[in-house]
């Protein structure tokens, strides 16, 4: 992406009383992008969004929209709109009036407003609901009105704060696809907040993983899954085994790790140092086990339990180091292993990544 960023955050800090909510954020968002802020609750996602919307002033740092400093601009003067977590529909206005609200504030003429509202109703598939009050709508319908109300203003960026949080699982999945469709159709840049990793992976072009007011990793869903930068990033997305080990040897592109007396090989990373304690990240579906020793890259352990879930089987294994790991595999062509039996746990070297162990240094 060589183009100029649409939105830039530079050195953003925010403290509430003595509490640090944001600890220096830098971010560039590009036109047409679907960027997700992902993280556990309290990581600063919503604060970041509110600062972009102008509903909160940063303690330090700047916000630029198309190169222009908008840090101190009032929310009503920003070409950025928000879909609130609780939708915040105006209870005393019907669907049509809710959607028309922003257009009326811009003092557009009635005909234009009517036409734009109708186009929007069509896009969110709520034709015929114009005169309904928000209290007469289902959760999913309110959600659509909230999106329509913001999107009708054709903002440069649409900010969405956990918009699917209040919906049930089935509706969430459906709305995920629909949101993605709307984003393509409208061509608006979306900054989306969620704490649901699956949602983030499904929808985003890029994901900014947050923790304690900082970005842990900013990458595409593929990158984030395949190359997590730290144990936190690895464990937040997907089902992950983090096997603790110590670097015993570095050989160019290859590392030797000492894991409870056993040596395994792993791909090197430029930050790795001799003697360093780190984690080897192996996704559950990439961890295998069998009775016979494959000869290399294998750890010994025993099978504790297996759970059959139809297409998959999840196995819980205890390594000789005492650590518990999880293996998920398809039920086809599996080798029958009994509970309590000793097994070899192994994986493909290229499917495992070494990461910094940052699990304990939460603020």
């Amino acid at each position, binding site marked *: 992406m060589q183009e100029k960023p649409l939105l830039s955050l530079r050195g953003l800090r925010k403290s509430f009383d003595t509490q640090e909510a944001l600890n220096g954020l830098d971010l560039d968002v590009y036109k047409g992008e679907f960027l997700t802020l992902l993280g556990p609750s309290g990581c600063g996602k919503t604060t970041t969004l509110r600062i972009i919307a102008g509903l909160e002033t940063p303690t330090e740092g700047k916000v630029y929209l198309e190169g222009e400093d908008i840090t101190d601009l009032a*929310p*009503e003067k920003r070409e950025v709109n*928000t879909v609130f977590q*609780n939708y915040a529909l*105006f*209870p*005393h206005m019907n669907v049509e009036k809710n959607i028309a*609200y*922003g257009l009326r504030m811009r003092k557009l003429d009635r005909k234009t407003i009517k036409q734009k509202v109708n186009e929007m109703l069509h896009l969110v598939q709520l034709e015929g609901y114009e005169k309904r009050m928000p209290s007469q709508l289902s959760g999913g319908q309110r959600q659509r009105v909230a999106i329509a109300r913001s999107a009708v203003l054709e903002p440069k960026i649409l900010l969405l704060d956990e918009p699917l949080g209040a919906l049930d699982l089935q509706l969430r999945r459906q709305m995920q696809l629909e949101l993605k469709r709307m984003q393509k159709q409208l061509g608006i840049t979306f900054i989306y907040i969620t704490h649901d990793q699956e949602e983030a992976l499904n929808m985003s072009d890029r994901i900014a993983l947050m923790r304690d007011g900082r970005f842990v990793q900013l990458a595409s869903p593929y990158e984030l899954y395949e190359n997590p930068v730290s144990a936190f990033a690895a464990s937040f997305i997907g089902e992950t085994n983090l096997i603790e080990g110590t670097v015993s040897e570095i050989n160019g592109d290859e590392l030797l790790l000492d894991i409870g007396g056993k040596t395994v090989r792993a791909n090197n990373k430029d930050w790795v140092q001799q003697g360093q304690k780190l984690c080897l990240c192996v996704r559950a579906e990439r961890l295998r086990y069998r009775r016979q020793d494959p000869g290399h890259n294998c750890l010994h352990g025993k099978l504790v339990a297996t759970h059959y879930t139809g297409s998959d089987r999840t196995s819980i294994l205890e390594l000789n180091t005492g650590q518990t790991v999880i293996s998920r595999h398809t039920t086809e062509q599996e080798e029958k292993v009994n509970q309590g039996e000793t097994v070899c746990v192994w994986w493909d070297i290229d499917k495992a990544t070494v990461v910094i162990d940052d699990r304990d240094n939460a603020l």
Partner: protein
Amino acid sequence: MNEKNDKKQLLAVPMGLWAAAFVGLSLLYIIGLSLLTKGEGFSYSPPITLDNYLRLREKQYISSLLLSLRLAFYTTAISALVGYPFAYFISKASPKRRVWLLVMLIAPFWTNALIRIYGWKILFYANGPINTLLKSLGIIEKPLKLLYTEGAVLVGMVYGMLPFFVLPVYSSVERIDWSMVEASRDLGASPLKAFITVTIPMTSAGVMAGLVLTFIPSVGLFFISDLLGGSNTMLWGNLIQNELLKSHDMPFAAALSVVLLAMTAIVLFIYRRQGGEAESMVY
């Protein structure tokens, strides 16, 4: 299921009897009384007549009615203009300050209203604190006539009624979901526009309640106008009081009361119609 409901309804019987005895019967008594004729002293007797109502066409009663309505209207309007910002301010204050502000609002109720109005009377005297202060500041030379004016009555009434407007509005402002106001700003409304198009409509139930709670008692108040207005401000309440205590004309006093009740009923009827809508506005 019906049986259960029937049993539950039994619980309402004492309340129903109470209402029938102390509201229904007294109401019938007053309406019946208003159709009778005054006798010696406090006594009254048939024939049944509409004379008491026909008397109301006389000029003094019409002008008293208009004066009562006008003062009640001003009282309500001023209470709303002063009370809304006050209620807003209280609900926006920090929890600790909020308690103090509410205590200050409610504390006067611990003293008898009559005594508090006497306090205002002293303030308004020709050589009272207000005139003394204005004179010592050189703003006026001769004392202003404050007591026994419509203005004095109005001040007393606003003073007395303000809490009844502030409290319901305060409770509705306090319940506002501020994300609605943020949403309106986000959608392009200036702070003032957001206040007019979102904050006020969302508190309309409280405002309506406040208006009714202020207006209805204001129409019937008599002791404030008696103490601060003297014989210059004959409100409807004063008429009833005079007919009863001075002329001893129970039937005519009853007729005046029926008119007051009718006015109250009309206001409540309008409120119910508006209030129904106002309630549906809050979810």
